[in-house]
């Protein structure tokens, strides 16, 4: 018989936990859900758009009642659980329904806090918490004019904005002198207040509500000094309190919330708790993103996997008021040791503040330009050392040099038909509509459903803004711990560590050890695992061709019509008449439609049919040409200028050094493609400062630059160090490439990798620690001893070449082999 799982609380956190559990172990439990409200589970964070009449209740349902039937879950809607019998392990609802449990999840959410003043029982006084509240507010808006919102926090301001859109005169009453004081400092709050006043909201600041007056329905609100303002509707939005009544009555240990450990377990090991009712390491959360993180971890334990831990969440908030950009994250107050970095442009109403402690960002307030919110939030969560970059942190990085988004960095002013994703032609309107209609919370959801940001990724920041605009601060930013792909719960780093420490040596071994949820992985994880294994066990691991993308299997680049392009290696960009002749002859012999120079000083033969590839390779091989790996997550080109051999400005032999670097590094596999360049003088004709690893020669030696990128998001390199000899350059280069191979995530270029770990970290290893540098270099050379063989030579003839040939059904038919009409 299946174990019984009971969930008390049919809200977003509890139901998310159930959904996560069903993903892991759909058959493990008989599940019963109790919900005090009459509806299925709806998206509470879209209450504000519901109030502003931008959505209907149907639009915001997450799990309609049919969903519970489809998943074999018993739903008791409209029934409130009143007692838990922990000895007998059962719960009883107000109508007498009694259900036994083996495990119980409490997701009782929170109560809106009502200020204890006379008159709160009057008609027309509501909280702002659920669909019923919204219905009451909408009804009032129909026949009444004056609304008073008590509370100038996030929720209060959203309620005020919604009511104003419904045509009411709205006054916001706030006890303190500054709005949203938990998220904003005074300067940002003043800008926000001015902007809301411009939209017609009125404010009563530093006003203590003393009484709500009226006969049967509310008529006015009275303050401490006796001053009254008229009110037909009073919305109490001063905060929420975890709902711990049920847990307390059952003797489950509570403080402010139900106290849980890192596996979301209460002091009664059979009882778990999740969501707003929970107190974890002293913190209670009221936003959705942390609740979803909790739900995932709770499911992991209830499913008896038992390996993930909740370590608390860092939260960010964004106001859901159209046209106003406010972003806040982390600790915005700071202490004596905190430094502030400020940017202010009063004319454009832009204000940005970062709090920095021990060279790490601990908090941020952005007003007017929030394009960098997601990026800064990520830096806070990752604890990035900003000592090298702090002087330009506050200049919007998002739009600078990015391609594909027409230089636009703010979504609020865009019209619905403005194109957001230039690769897939997706407009703002489509994205917003899909977020609402398909109930999306994360960037990945949006990518899947709309394709926006799923190709080159340059519009990721814009899509994140749209999520935040639509869902407010409650959208689920990519979880702090991001699993490598949907087949696993583990991150790239955890997978790599397991491979090394547990000595896992094949893809099936990794999948078995780490409890992969699919039997055979997917197109995301298999190539990653293949690379990680290849990198960890050089010479030992047998490369799995079937886990590589077609380009790396076919050793050529697939084109839109299914033909391939072929690029032979041109060492350091230097070729010869004999090589050029051989390439020309191949192009003619195989009728290659296009021959083009690449940006990396090589020749590209485009439009080669797959079955011709082995022949093309054979012919190129016999002229001494080998694969240029232009198709791989591998070393691509080493671009050079002519240097001191010819150039009157040249300071060193840049061409010769480029060839030496290419000879050392060719054939190496990487997390992503890697491009090198060597320029003979600071005029930098080889554009070394937008390459993954660039050398700029100067009279006294060689400058090394790393982490550049000339693609979607242009990034100039960071200066790594200056060296005196070519030998040193080769060693540093090998060490840097090996560090990248060993530590970056699969499909992460050097530029985002360096931004993620910080340049300081890389310098410590490569520049400051001679021993580690030497070890890395040695490991690189050892790995190269196994990987420097030309894949073309291996595939030009024999059985491997055969796999490139299609089977011709027509020819077989003509030969009379077709077994006409034979039965199965």
């Amino acid at each position: 018989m299946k174990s019984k799982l009971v969930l008390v609380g049919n809200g977003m956190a509890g139901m998310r936990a159930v959904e996560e559990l069903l993903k892991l172990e759909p058959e493990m439990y008989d599940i019963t859900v109790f919900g005090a409200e009459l509806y299925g589970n709806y998206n509470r964070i879209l209450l504000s758009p519901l109030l502003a009449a931008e959505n209907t209740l149907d639009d915001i349902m997450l799990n309609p009642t049919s969903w519970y039937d489809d998943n074999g879950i018993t739903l008791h809607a409209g029934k409130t659980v009143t007692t838990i019998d922990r000895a007998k392990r059962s719960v009883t609802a107000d109508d007498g329904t009694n259900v036994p449990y083996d495990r119980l999840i409490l997701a009782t959410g929170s109560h809106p806090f009502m200020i204890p003043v006379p008159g709160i029982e009057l008609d027309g006084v509501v909280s702002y918490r659920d669909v019923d509240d919204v219905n009451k507010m909408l009804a009032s808006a129909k026949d009444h004019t004056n609304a008073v919102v008590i509370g100038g926090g996030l929720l209060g301001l959203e309620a005020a904005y919604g009511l104003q859109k419904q045509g009411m005169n709205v006054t916001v009453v706030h006890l303190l002198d500054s709005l949203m004081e938990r998220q904003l400092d005074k300067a940002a709050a003043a800008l926000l207040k001015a902007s809301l006043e411009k939209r017609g909201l009125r404010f009563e600041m530093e006003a203590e509500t003393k009484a709500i007056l009226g006969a049967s329905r509310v008529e006015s609100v009275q303050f401490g000094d006796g001053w009254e303002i008229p009110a037909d509707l009073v919305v109490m939005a001063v905060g929420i309190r975890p709902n711990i009544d049920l847990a307390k009555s059952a003797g489950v240990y509570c403080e402010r919330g139900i106290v849980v450990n890192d596996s979301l377990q209460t002091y009664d090991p059979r009882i778990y708790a999740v969501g707003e009712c929970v107190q974890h390491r002293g913190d209670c959360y009221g936003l959705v993103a942390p609740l979803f993180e909790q739900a995932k971890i709770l499911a992991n334990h209830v499913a008896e996997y038992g390996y993930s831990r909740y370590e608390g969440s860092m939260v960010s908030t964004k106001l859901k008021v159209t046209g106003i950009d406010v972003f806040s994250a982390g600790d915005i107050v700071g202490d004596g040791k905190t430094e502030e970095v400020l940017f202010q442009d009063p004319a454009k109403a832009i204000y940005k503040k970062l709090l920095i402690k021990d060279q790490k960002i601990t908090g941020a307030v952005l007003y007017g330009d929030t394009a960098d919110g997601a990026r800064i939030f990520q830096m806070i969560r990752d604890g990035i050392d900003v000592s090298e970059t702090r002087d330009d942190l506050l200049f919007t990085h998002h739009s600078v040099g990015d391609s594909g988004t027409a230089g636009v960095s703010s979504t609020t002013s865009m019209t619905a038909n403005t194109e957001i994703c230039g690769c897939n032609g997706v407009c703002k309107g489509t994205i917003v509509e899909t977020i609402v209609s398909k109930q999306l919370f994360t960037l990945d959801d949006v990518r899947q459903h709309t394709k926006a940001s799923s190709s080159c990724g340059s519009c990721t920041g814009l899509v994140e803004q749209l999520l935040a605009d639509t869902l407010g601060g409650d959208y689920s930013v990519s979880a702090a711990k991001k699993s490598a792909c949907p087949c696993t719960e583990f991150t790239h780093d955890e997978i790599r560590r397991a491979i090394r420490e547990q000595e896992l040596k094949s893809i099936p071994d990794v999948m078995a050890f780490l409890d992969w949820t699919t039997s055979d992985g997917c197109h995301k994880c298999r190539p990653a695992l293949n690379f990680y294994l290849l990198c960890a066990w050089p010479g030992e691991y047998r490369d799995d061709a079937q886990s590589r993308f077609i380009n790396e299997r076919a050793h050529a680049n697939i084109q839109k019509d299914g033909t391939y392009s072929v690029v032979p290696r041109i060492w350091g960009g230097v070729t010869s008449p004999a090589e050029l002749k051989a390439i020309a002859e191949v192009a003619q012999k195989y009728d290659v439609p296009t021959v083009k120079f690449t940006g990396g000083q090589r020749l590209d033969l485009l439009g080669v049919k797959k079955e011709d590839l082995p022949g093309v390779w054979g012919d190129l091989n016999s002229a001494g040409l080998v694969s240029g790996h232009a198709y791989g997550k591998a070393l691509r080109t080493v671009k050079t200028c002519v240097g001191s051999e010819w150039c009157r400005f040249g300071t060193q032999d840049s061409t010769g050094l480029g060839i030496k670097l290419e000879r050392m590094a060719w054939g190496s596999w990487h997390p992503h493609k890697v491009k090198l360049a060597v320029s003979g003088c600071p005029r930098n004709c080889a554009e070394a400062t937008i390459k993954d690893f660039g050398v700029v020669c100067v009279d006294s030696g060689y400058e090394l630059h790393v982490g550049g990128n000339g693609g979607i998001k242009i990034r100039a390199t960071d200066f790594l160090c200056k060296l005196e000899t070519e030998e040193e350059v080769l060693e540093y280069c090998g060490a840097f490439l090996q560090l990248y191979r060993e530590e970056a995530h699969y499909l992460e270029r050097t530029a985002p990798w360096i931004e993620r770990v910080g340049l300081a970290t890389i310098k410590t290893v490569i520049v400051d620690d001679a021993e580690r540098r030497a070890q890395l270099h040695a490991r690189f050379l050892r790995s190269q001893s196994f990987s420097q063989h030309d894949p073309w030579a291996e595939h030009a003839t024999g059985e491997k070449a055969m796999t490139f040939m299609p089977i011709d059904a027509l020819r077989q038919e003509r030969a009379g082999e077709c077994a006409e009409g034979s039965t199965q």
Partner: protein
Amino acid sequence: MSWCPAGGLSQIPARGARVLKTGNGNVAVFRTFDDKLFALADRCPHRQGPLSQGIVHGTKVTCPLHDWVIDLSTGSAVAPDSGCTSTYPVKVEDGLVYVDLPNG
């Protein structure tokens, strides 16, 4: 319909595919990790990418052009994408693979 020989089973790698040229365009013959065989028109419903060149995982293949995932048993794109490509019956006799193709 008629059963057309499509080479030996050993010529199709596990988690891979071979292309069968026919009068009506290419057919991709897939072999999964657990040696199940499937034959589909070698055209992704999205932008006609050659499915035969994709990564095969479980009983699905990912199109190499834009990462659409196609279910090999039905020919349908996996949600949220939607679209469908033709499928054909396959059998193995004495180590030889046969695909049931429409005549002509």
